[in-house]
Protein backbone atom coordinates (compact mmCIF):
# COMPACT_ATOMS: atom_id res chain seq x y z
CA UNK A 1 0.00 0.00 0.00
CA UNK A 2 1.43 3.34 -1.08
CA UNK A 3 0.35 6.59 0.49
CA UNK A 4 -0.56 9.49 -1.76
CA UNK A 5 -2.94 12.42 -1.88
CA UNK A 6 -5.04 10.50 -4.39
CA UNK A 7 -5.21 7.54 -2.02
CA UNK A 8 -6.37 9.69 0.88
CA UNK A 9 -9.18 11.13 -1.26
CA UNK A 10 -10.24 7.69 -2.50
CA UNK A 11 -10.29 6.24 1.01
CA UNK A 12 -12.18 9.27 2.26
CA UNK A 13 -14.88 8.69 -0.33
CA UNK A 14 -15.14 4.96 0.33
CA UNK A 15 -15.40 5.01 4.12
CA UNK A 16 -11.68 4.42 4.80
CA UNK A 17 -12.15 0.65 4.45
CA UNK A 18 -9.14 0.10 2.18
CA UNK A 19 -6.34 0.76 4.66
CA UNK A 20 -4.34 -2.29 5.71
CA UNK A 21 -1.93 -2.92 8.62
CA UNK A 22 1.42 -1.21 8.06
CA UNK A 23 3.45 -4.31 8.85
CA UNK A 24 3.01 -8.05 9.32
CA UNK A 25 2.81 -9.50 12.81
CA UNK A 26 5.75 -11.85 12.28
CA UNK A 27 6.41 -14.96 14.39
CA UNK A 28 10.07 -15.71 15.18
CA UNK A 29 11.92 -18.19 12.98
CA UNK A 30 14.66 -20.46 14.33
CA UNK A 31 17.52 -18.58 12.73
CA UNK A 32 18.41 -15.23 11.13
CA UNK A 33 21.54 -13.73 9.64
CA UNK A 34 21.14 -10.71 11.90
CA UNK A 35 19.06 -10.26 15.04
CA UNK A 36 18.47 -6.70 16.24
CA UNK A 37 17.51 -6.42 19.91
CA UNK A 38 15.23 -3.42 20.45
CA UNK A 39 12.44 -2.01 18.29
CA UNK A 40 12.97 1.68 19.00
CA UNK A 41 13.92 4.29 16.44
CA UNK A 42 17.50 3.11 16.13
CA UNK A 43 16.73 -0.61 15.89
CA UNK A 44 14.06 -0.05 13.24
CA UNK A 45 16.15 2.32 11.13
CA UNK A 46 19.07 -0.11 11.34
CA UNK A 47 16.85 -2.90 10.01
CA UNK A 48 15.55 -0.67 7.24
CA UNK A 49 19.01 0.33 5.99
CA UNK A 50 20.34 -3.24 6.28
CA UNK A 51 17.66 -4.24 3.79
CA UNK A 52 17.79 -1.16 1.59
CA UNK A 53 21.54 -0.49 1.37
CA UNK A 54 22.96 -3.97 1.79
CA UNK A 55 20.23 -6.28 0.53
CA UNK A 56 20.15 -8.07 3.90
CA UNK A 57 16.60 -9.03 4.75
CA UNK A 58 17.08 -12.26 6.67
CA UNK A 59 16.88 -9.99 9.69
CA UNK A 60 14.64 -9.85 12.75
CA UNK A 61 13.94 -6.99 15.15
CA UNK A 62 13.04 -8.33 18.60
CA UNK A 63 11.04 -5.93 20.73
CA UNK A 64 10.01 -6.77 24.29
CA UNK A 65 6.97 -4.50 24.19
CA UNK A 66 5.43 -2.85 21.15
CA UNK A 67 7.24 -1.00 18.37
CA UNK A 68 7.82 2.61 19.30
CA UNK A 69 6.85 2.17 22.96
CA UNK A 70 10.27 3.28 24.24
CA UNK A 71 12.02 6.62 24.05
CA UNK A 72 11.35 7.01 20.35
CA UNK A 73 7.72 7.68 21.28
CA UNK A 74 8.46 9.68 24.44
CA UNK A 75 10.81 12.42 23.36
CA UNK A 76 10.23 16.12 22.76
CA UNK A 77 10.92 15.55 19.04
CA UNK A 78 13.61 18.17 18.44
CA UNK A 79 15.66 17.56 15.29
CA UNK A 80 18.76 19.72 14.79
CA UNK A 81 22.36 19.77 13.57
CA UNK A 82 23.97 22.35 15.84
CA UNK A 83 26.75 20.26 17.32
CA UNK A 84 30.19 21.65 17.75
CA UNK A 85 32.86 18.99 18.04
CA UNK A 86 34.35 16.86 15.26
CA UNK A 87 32.84 13.41 15.63
CA UNK A 88 29.40 14.79 16.47
CA UNK A 89 29.30 17.60 13.95
CA UNK A 90 29.56 15.55 10.76
CA UNK A 91 27.28 12.86 12.13
CA UNK A 92 24.35 15.13 13.02
CA UNK A 93 24.85 17.08 9.82
CA UNK A 94 24.52 13.83 7.89
CA UNK A 95 21.47 12.87 9.92
CA UNK A 96 19.69 16.15 9.20
CA UNK A 97 20.28 15.66 5.47
CA UNK A 98 18.68 12.21 5.73
CA UNK A 99 15.73 13.75 7.61
CA UNK A 100 15.22 16.18 4.76
CA UNK A 101 14.52 13.35 2.34
CA UNK A 102 12.93 10.95 4.79
CA UNK A 103 9.25 11.32 3.95
CA UNK A 104 9.80 10.72 0.25
CA UNK A 105 12.20 7.90 1.04
CA UNK A 106 9.76 6.13 3.35
CA UNK A 107 6.56 7.23 1.59
CA UNK A 108 5.40 8.10 5.06
CA UNK A 109 4.35 11.38 6.65
CA UNK A 110 6.67 11.85 9.62
CA UNK A 111 5.58 15.50 9.87
CA UNK A 112 9.17 16.72 9.76
CA UNK A 113 8.80 20.45 10.26
CA UNK A 114 11.86 22.66 9.78
CA UNK A 115 10.39 25.52 11.74
CA UNK A 116 13.74 26.74 13.05
CA UNK A 117 15.43 26.44 16.42
CA UNK A 118 16.59 29.41 18.51
CA UNK A 119 19.12 28.86 21.31
CA UNK A 120 18.98 31.97 23.48
CA UNK A 121 21.96 33.59 25.15
CA UNK A 122 21.90 35.79 28.21
CA UNK A 123 25.47 37.06 28.68
CA UNK A 124 28.44 38.27 26.64
CA UNK A 125 30.35 35.09 27.33
CA UNK A 126 27.47 32.99 26.10
CA UNK A 127 27.19 35.12 22.95
CA UNK A 128 30.85 34.44 22.17
CA UNK A 129 30.37 30.72 22.72
CA UNK A 130 27.32 30.67 20.43
CA UNK A 131 29.08 32.72 17.76
CA UNK A 132 31.81 30.10 17.80
CA UNK A 133 29.30 27.27 17.66
CA UNK A 134 27.53 28.98 14.76
CA UNK A 135 30.81 29.19 12.87
CA UNK A 136 31.46 25.51 13.49
CA UNK A 137 28.01 24.73 12.09
CA UNK A 138 28.62 26.85 9.01
CA UNK A 139 32.02 25.20 8.49
CA UNK A 140 30.25 21.88 8.59
CA UNK A 141 27.96 23.11 5.80
CA UNK A 142 24.91 23.68 7.95
CA UNK A 143 23.03 26.88 8.68
CA UNK A 144 23.42 29.24 11.63
CA UNK A 145 22.50 32.89 12.10
CA UNK A 146 23.48 34.94 15.14
CA UNK A 147 20.46 37.04 16.14
CA UNK A 148 20.63 40.11 18.33
CA UNK A 149 17.86 41.02 20.75
CA UNK A 150 15.69 42.62 18.11
CA UNK A 151 16.25 39.66 15.83
CA UNK A 152 14.94 37.32 18.51
CA UNK A 153 12.06 39.69 19.25
CA UNK A 154 10.84 39.41 15.66
CA UNK A 155 10.47 35.64 16.07
CA UNK A 156 9.35 35.46 19.70
CA UNK A 157 7.97 38.76 21.01
CA UNK A 158 6.52 37.07 24.10
CA UNK A 159 9.84 36.33 25.82
CA UNK A 160 10.74 38.23 28.98
CA UNK A 161 13.58 40.18 27.31
CA UNK A 162 14.31 42.35 30.35
CA UNK A 163 14.23 39.67 33.00
CA UNK A 164 16.35 41.00 35.85
CA UNK A 165 18.48 37.90 36.22
CA UNK A 166 18.50 36.45 32.72
CA UNK A 167 17.84 39.18 30.14
CA UNK A 168 17.71 37.90 26.55
CA UNK A 169 20.72 39.27 24.63
CA UNK A 170 20.10 37.32 21.45
CA UNK A 171 20.07 33.81 20.07
CA UNK A 172 21.70 31.38 17.69
CA UNK A 173 19.13 30.65 15.01
CA UNK A 174 19.27 27.33 13.14
CA UNK A 175 16.56 27.61 10.44
CA UNK A 176 16.79 23.96 9.38
CA UNK A 177 16.20 22.76 12.93
CA UNK A 178 12.69 21.74 13.96
CA UNK A 179 10.54 18.84 15.03
CA UNK A 180 8.99 15.62 13.69
CA UNK A 181 6.17 13.32 14.72
CA UNK A 182 8.10 10.80 16.79
CA UNK A 183 5.79 7.76 16.55
CA UNK A 184 5.52 8.19 12.80
CA UNK A 185 9.29 7.91 12.49
CA UNK A 186 9.21 4.52 14.21
CA UNK A 187 6.19 3.41 12.16
CA UNK A 188 7.65 4.65 8.88
CA UNK A 189 10.90 2.75 9.36
CA UNK A 190 9.01 -0.30 10.62
CA UNK A 191 6.81 -0.35 7.54
CA UNK A 192 9.80 0.19 5.24
CA UNK A 193 11.78 -2.64 6.87
CA UNK A 194 8.78 -4.99 6.84
CA UNK A 195 8.19 -4.35 3.15
CA UNK A 196 11.77 -5.35 2.45
CA UNK A 197 11.31 -8.65 4.26
CA UNK A 198 12.52 -7.92 7.78
CA UNK A 199 10.59 -9.71 10.55
CA UNK A 200 9.38 -7.32 13.25
CA UNK A 201 8.65 -9.41 16.32
CA UNK A 202 6.85 -7.73 19.20
CA UNK A 203 6.28 -9.01 22.73
CA UNK A 204 9.59 -10.81 22.43
CA UNK A 205 12.00 -9.98 25.22
CA UNK A 206 15.60 -11.11 24.92
CA UNK A 207 16.58 -12.82 28.18
CA UNK A 208 19.98 -14.23 27.30
CA UNK A 209 22.81 -14.05 24.77
CA UNK A 210 24.69 -17.28 24.06
CA UNK A 211 28.38 -17.04 23.27
CA UNK A 212 30.66 -19.92 22.28
CA UNK A 213 34.39 -19.71 21.50
CA UNK A 214 34.26 -15.93 21.60
CA UNK A 215 31.50 -15.74 19.00
CA UNK A 216 27.82 -14.95 19.43
CA UNK A 217 25.60 -18.00 18.66
CA UNK A 218 22.03 -17.23 19.59
CA UNK A 219 19.68 -15.28 21.81
CA UNK A 220 17.21 -16.61 24.35
CA UNK A 221 13.82 -14.92 24.25
CA UNK A 222 10.41 -15.14 25.86
CA UNK A 223 9.32 -16.64 22.51
CA UNK A 224 12.06 -19.25 22.41
CA UNK A 225 15.71 -19.39 21.33
CA UNK A 226 16.78 -17.81 18.03
CA UNK A 227 20.12 -18.53 16.33
CA UNK A 228 21.92 -15.63 14.67
CA UNK A 229 25.20 -15.00 12.89
CA UNK A 230 25.24 -11.43 14.15
CA UNK A 231 23.45 -9.78 17.04
CA UNK A 232 22.98 -6.04 17.48
CA UNK A 233 22.14 -4.51 20.86
CA UNK A 234 20.06 -1.33 20.36
CA UNK A 235 18.07 -1.00 23.58
CA UNK A 236 18.73 2.60 24.77
CA UNK A 237 17.93 2.80 28.51
CA UNK A 238 18.19 -0.98 28.92
CA UNK A 239 21.70 -1.23 27.45
CA UNK A 240 23.25 -2.14 30.80
CA UNK A 241 21.01 -5.18 31.33
CA UNK A 242 21.25 -6.54 27.81
CA UNK A 243 25.03 -6.06 27.63
CA UNK A 244 25.31 -7.89 30.96
CA UNK A 245 23.77 -10.93 29.22
CA UNK A 246 26.96 -10.97 27.14
CA UNK A 247 29.15 -10.47 30.19
CA UNK A 248 29.84 -6.81 29.48
CA UNK A 249 29.81 -3.72 31.69
CA UNK A 250 29.24 -0.52 29.74
CA UNK A 251 30.21 3.10 30.29
CA UNK A 252 26.49 3.83 30.62
CA UNK A 253 24.25 4.95 33.47
CA UNK A 254 20.47 5.01 32.93
CA UNK A 255 18.58 8.10 34.05
CA UNK A 256 15.01 9.35 33.79
CA UNK A 257 14.18 12.36 31.61
CA UNK A 258 10.74 13.93 31.80
CA UNK A 259 8.62 15.71 29.21
CA UNK A 260 5.44 17.79 29.49
CA UNK A 261 2.60 18.84 27.25
CA UNK A 262 -0.04 21.50 27.81
CA UNK A 263 -3.65 21.54 26.72
CA UNK A 264 -4.16 22.41 23.04
CA UNK A 265 -3.79 26.13 22.31
CA UNK A 266 -4.01 28.33 19.26
CA UNK A 267 -0.69 28.78 17.42
CA UNK A 268 1.61 30.92 19.54
CA UNK A 269 5.16 29.53 19.39
CA UNK A 270 6.40 29.17 15.84
CA UNK A 271 9.92 27.83 16.41
CA UNK A 272 11.67 25.57 18.85
CA UNK A 273 13.04 27.81 21.60
CA UNK A 274 15.73 26.80 24.08
CA UNK A 275 16.49 28.83 27.20
CA UNK A 276 20.20 29.48 27.74
CA UNK A 277 20.03 29.58 31.53
CA UNK A 278 18.48 26.66 33.33
CA UNK A 279 17.26 23.75 31.30
CA UNK A 280 14.14 24.46 29.28
CA UNK A 281 13.12 23.96 25.64
CA UNK A 282 9.71 24.29 24.04
CA UNK A 283 7.82 23.92 20.79
CA UNK A 284 4.15 23.71 19.86
CA UNK A 285 2.75 20.56 18.31
CA UNK A 286 0.41 20.64 15.34
CA UNK A 287 -2.41 19.71 17.72
CA UNK A 288 -1.65 22.91 19.64
CA UNK A 289 -0.09 21.46 22.79
CA UNK A 290 3.04 23.14 24.10
CA UNK A 291 5.65 20.40 24.30
CA UNK A 292 8.48 21.14 26.69
CA UNK A 293 11.15 19.62 28.86
CA UNK A 294 14.33 20.21 30.81
CA UNK A 295 17.16 18.26 32.32
CA UNK A 296 17.35 14.67 33.56
CA UNK A 297 16.30 14.08 37.16
CA UNK A 298 19.99 13.55 38.00
CA UNK A 299 20.03 10.11 39.60
CA UNK A 300 20.07 6.62 38.12
CA UNK A 301 16.54 5.37 37.50
CA UNK A 302 14.46 2.85 35.59
CA UNK A 303 11.13 4.21 36.82
CA UNK A 304 9.57 5.76 33.73
CA UNK A 305 8.24 8.61 35.83
CA UNK A 306 10.04 11.53 37.36
CA UNK A 307 10.35 13.42 40.58
CA UNK A 308 8.85 16.75 41.55
CA UNK A 309 12.09 18.78 41.91
CA UNK A 310 12.77 18.34 38.20
CA UNK A 311 9.16 19.29 37.39
CA UNK A 312 9.53 22.39 39.51
CA UNK A 313 12.77 23.38 37.79
CA UNK A 314 11.22 23.05 34.34
CA UNK A 315 8.14 25.08 35.31
CA UNK A 316 10.26 27.79 36.95
CA UNK A 317 12.49 28.06 33.91
CA UNK A 318 9.45 28.29 31.64
CA UNK A 319 7.90 31.02 33.77
CA UNK A 320 11.19 32.94 33.83
CA UNK A 321 11.59 32.83 30.07
CA UNK A 322 8.00 33.33 28.93
CA UNK A 323 5.65 34.37 31.74
CA UNK A 324 2.65 33.90 29.45
CA UNK A 325 3.09 30.13 29.80
CA UNK A 326 1.63 30.41 33.31
CA UNK A 327 -1.81 30.68 31.77
CA UNK A 328 -1.54 27.27 30.11
CA UNK A 329 -2.39 24.11 32.00
CA UNK A 330 -0.19 21.05 31.90
CA UNK A 331 -2.13 18.17 30.45
CA UNK A 332 0.32 15.30 30.78
CA UNK A 333 3.86 14.52 31.80
CA UNK A 334 5.88 11.34 31.48
CA UNK A 335 9.41 10.02 31.67
CA UNK A 336 11.74 7.96 29.53
CA UNK A 337 14.90 6.08 30.49
CA UNK A 338 17.92 7.54 28.75
CA UNK A 339 21.33 5.90 28.39
CA UNK A 340 23.91 8.42 29.62
CA UNK A 341 27.61 8.10 28.77
CA UNK A 342 30.47 9.92 30.55
CA UNK A 343 31.14 12.33 27.65
CA UNK A 344 27.51 12.65 26.55
CA UNK A 345 28.19 11.13 23.11
CA UNK A 346 26.97 7.81 21.71
CA UNK A 347 28.58 4.45 20.96
CA UNK A 348 28.28 2.65 17.61
CA UNK A 349 30.85 -0.12 17.63
CA UNK A 350 31.83 -3.76 17.68
CA UNK A 351 32.39 -5.57 20.96
CA UNK A 352 35.05 -8.05 22.03
CA UNK A 353 32.64 -10.86 21.15
CA UNK A 354 32.69 -11.80 17.45
CA UNK A 355 29.41 -10.97 15.79
CA UNK A 356 28.11 -8.86 18.67
CA UNK A 357 27.58 -5.16 17.98
CA UNK A 358 26.52 -2.25 20.12
CA UNK A 359 24.55 0.93 19.49
CA UNK A 360 23.79 2.94 22.65
CA UNK A 361 24.63 5.98 24.74
CA UNK A 362 22.23 8.39 23.04
CA UNK A 363 21.79 10.35 26.23
CA UNK A 364 18.88 12.79 25.87
CA UNK A 365 19.49 13.49 22.19
CA UNK A 366 19.06 10.36 20.12
CA UNK A 367 15.83 11.11 18.30
CA UNK A 368 17.44 13.41 15.74
CA UNK A 369 20.07 10.70 15.25
CA UNK A 370 17.65 7.97 14.20
CA UNK A 371 18.25 8.13 10.41
CA UNK A 372 22.06 8.44 10.51
CA UNK A 373 22.48 6.00 13.38
CA UNK A 374 20.54 3.32 11.54
CA UNK A 375 22.41 3.91 8.33
CA UNK A 376 25.85 3.92 9.94
CA UNK A 377 25.11 0.96 12.19
CA UNK A 378 23.76 -1.04 9.25
CA UNK A 379 26.99 -0.24 7.41
CA UNK A 380 29.04 -1.53 10.34
CA UNK A 381 26.92 -4.68 10.69
CA UNK A 382 27.04 -5.46 6.98
CA UNK A 383 30.64 -4.57 6.14
CA UNK A 384 32.41 -4.70 9.50
CA UNK A 385 33.79 -1.25 8.75
CA UNK A 386 32.85 1.99 10.47
CA UNK A 387 30.86 4.45 8.41
CA UNK A 388 32.78 7.72 7.90
CA UNK A 389 30.02 9.79 9.50
CA UNK A 390 30.09 7.75 12.72
CA UNK A 391 33.72 6.72 12.95
CA UNK A 392 34.26 8.56 16.23
CA UNK A 393 31.69 6.74 18.35
CA UNK A 394 34.09 4.14 19.73
CA UNK A 395 33.47 2.06 22.80
CA UNK A 396 37.11 2.13 23.94
CA UNK A 397 37.48 5.93 23.96
CA UNK A 398 36.93 6.16 27.71
CA UNK A 399 39.53 3.52 28.52
CA UNK A 400 42.16 4.95 26.18
CA UNK A 401 41.25 8.61 26.65
CA UNK A 402 41.58 9.04 22.87
CA UNK A 403 38.65 10.49 20.94
CA UNK A 404 36.50 11.66 23.86
CA UNK A 405 33.64 13.76 22.41
CA UNK A 406 32.76 15.99 25.35
CA UNK A 407 30.36 18.45 23.72
CA UNK A 408 29.54 20.26 26.97
CA UNK A 409 33.16 20.54 28.06
CA UNK A 410 32.44 19.25 31.56
CA UNK A 411 34.90 16.36 31.57
CA UNK A 412 34.16 12.74 30.74
CA UNK A 413 32.56 11.87 34.06
CA UNK A 414 29.24 10.19 34.70
CA UNK A 415 27.41 12.67 36.91
CA UNK A 416 28.37 15.88 35.14
CA UNK A 417 25.60 16.38 32.62
Amino acid sequence: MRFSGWRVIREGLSGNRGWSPHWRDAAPRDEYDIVIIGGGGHGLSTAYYLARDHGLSNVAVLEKGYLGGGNVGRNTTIVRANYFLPGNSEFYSYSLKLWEGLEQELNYNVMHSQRGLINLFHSDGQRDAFARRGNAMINQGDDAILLDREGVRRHAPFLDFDNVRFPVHGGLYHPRGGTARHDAVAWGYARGADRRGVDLIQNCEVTGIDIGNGRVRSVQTTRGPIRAKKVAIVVAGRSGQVAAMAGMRLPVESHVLQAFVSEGLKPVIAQVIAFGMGHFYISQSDKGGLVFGGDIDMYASYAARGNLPAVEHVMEAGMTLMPMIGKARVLRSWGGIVDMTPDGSPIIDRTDTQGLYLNCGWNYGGFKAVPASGRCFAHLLATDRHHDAAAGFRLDRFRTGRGIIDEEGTGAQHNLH
Partner: protein
Amino acid sequence: MRISCPICGERDRREFHYRGAALTRPAPDAGEAAWDAYLHLRDNPAGATRELWYHETGCGAWVVVTRNTLTHEMPGCELAAEAAR
Protein backbone atom coordinates in the same frame (compact mmCIF):
# COMPACT_ATOMS: atom_id res chain seq x y z
CA MET B 1 12.07 11.39 47.09
CA ARG B 2 13.51 11.90 50.61
CA ILE B 3 16.84 10.75 51.96
CA SER B 4 17.41 9.82 55.63
CA CYS B 5 20.71 11.45 56.49
CA PRO B 6 22.17 9.70 59.58
CA ILE B 7 23.06 13.13 61.00
CA CYS B 8 20.17 15.37 59.96
CA GLY B 9 17.28 12.92 59.63
CA GLU B 10 14.88 12.67 56.68
CA ARG B 11 15.46 15.49 54.20
CA ASP B 12 14.25 16.53 50.76
CA ARG B 13 16.21 15.14 47.81
CA ARG B 14 16.94 18.74 46.74
CA GLU B 15 19.39 19.14 49.61
CA PHE B 16 21.59 16.41 48.18
CA HIS B 17 23.97 16.18 45.25
CA TYR B 18 24.13 12.87 43.39
CA ARG B 19 27.53 11.37 42.76
CA GLY B 20 26.74 7.89 41.41
CA ALA B 21 27.51 4.25 42.16
CA ALA B 22 29.44 3.71 45.41
CA LEU B 23 32.54 1.94 44.15
CA THR B 24 35.82 1.17 45.86
CA ARG B 25 38.60 3.40 44.60
CA PRO B 26 41.45 1.31 43.15
CA ALA B 27 45.04 1.66 44.30
CA PRO B 28 47.02 4.23 42.28
CA ASP B 29 49.00 1.46 40.58
CA ALA B 30 46.05 -0.89 40.05
CA GLY B 31 46.38 -0.55 36.29
CA GLU B 32 44.35 0.72 33.36
CA ALA B 33 41.57 -1.87 33.48
CA ALA B 34 40.82 -1.29 37.15
CA TRP B 35 40.76 2.48 36.71
CA ASP B 36 38.60 2.24 33.59
CA ALA B 37 36.15 0.08 35.54
CA TYR B 38 36.09 2.55 38.41
CA LEU B 39 35.77 5.72 36.37
CA HIS B 40 33.56 4.65 33.48
CA LEU B 41 32.01 1.18 33.59
CA ARG B 42 28.81 0.68 35.55
CA ASP B 43 26.64 -2.28 36.58
CA ASN B 44 23.74 0.14 36.04
CA PRO B 45 21.35 -2.22 37.85
CA ALA B 46 17.57 -2.18 37.45
CA GLY B 47 16.81 -2.83 41.10
CA ALA B 48 18.89 -2.48 44.25
CA THR B 49 21.91 -0.22 44.04
CA ARG B 50 24.38 1.48 46.41
CA GLU B 51 25.32 5.02 45.60
CA LEU B 52 27.02 8.13 46.93
CA TRP B 53 25.12 11.31 47.69
CA TYR B 54 26.49 14.50 49.27
CA HIS B 55 24.36 16.39 51.79
CA GLU B 56 25.25 19.67 50.15
CA THR B 57 22.89 22.13 51.82
CA GLY B 58 22.71 20.15 55.06
CA CYS B 59 25.54 18.79 57.20
CA GLY B 60 28.00 18.35 54.31
CA ALA B 61 28.40 14.60 54.89
CA TRP B 62 28.88 12.04 52.13
CA VAL B 63 26.36 9.25 52.54
CA VAL B 64 25.99 5.81 50.98
CA VAL B 65 22.35 5.27 50.05
CA THR B 66 20.80 1.89 49.28
CA ARG B 67 18.10 2.57 46.70
CA ASN B 68 15.89 0.69 44.27
CA THR B 69 16.21 2.20 40.80
CA LEU B 70 12.84 0.75 39.72
CA THR B 71 10.72 1.99 42.63
CA HIS B 72 12.92 4.74 44.15
CA GLU B 73 12.58 3.06 47.59
CA MET B 74 15.50 3.82 49.91
CA PRO B 75 15.86 1.13 52.51
CA GLY B 76 19.23 2.35 53.82
CA CYS B 77 21.49 5.33 54.30
CA GLU B 78 24.79 5.43 56.20
CA LEU B 79 27.72 7.78 56.43
CA ALA B 80 30.28 7.07 53.73
CA ALA B 81 33.04 7.33 56.32
CA GLU B 82 31.48 4.44 58.24
CA ALA B 83 30.57 2.40 55.16
CA ALA B 84 34.23 2.47 54.12
CA ARG B 85 35.36 0.84 57.37
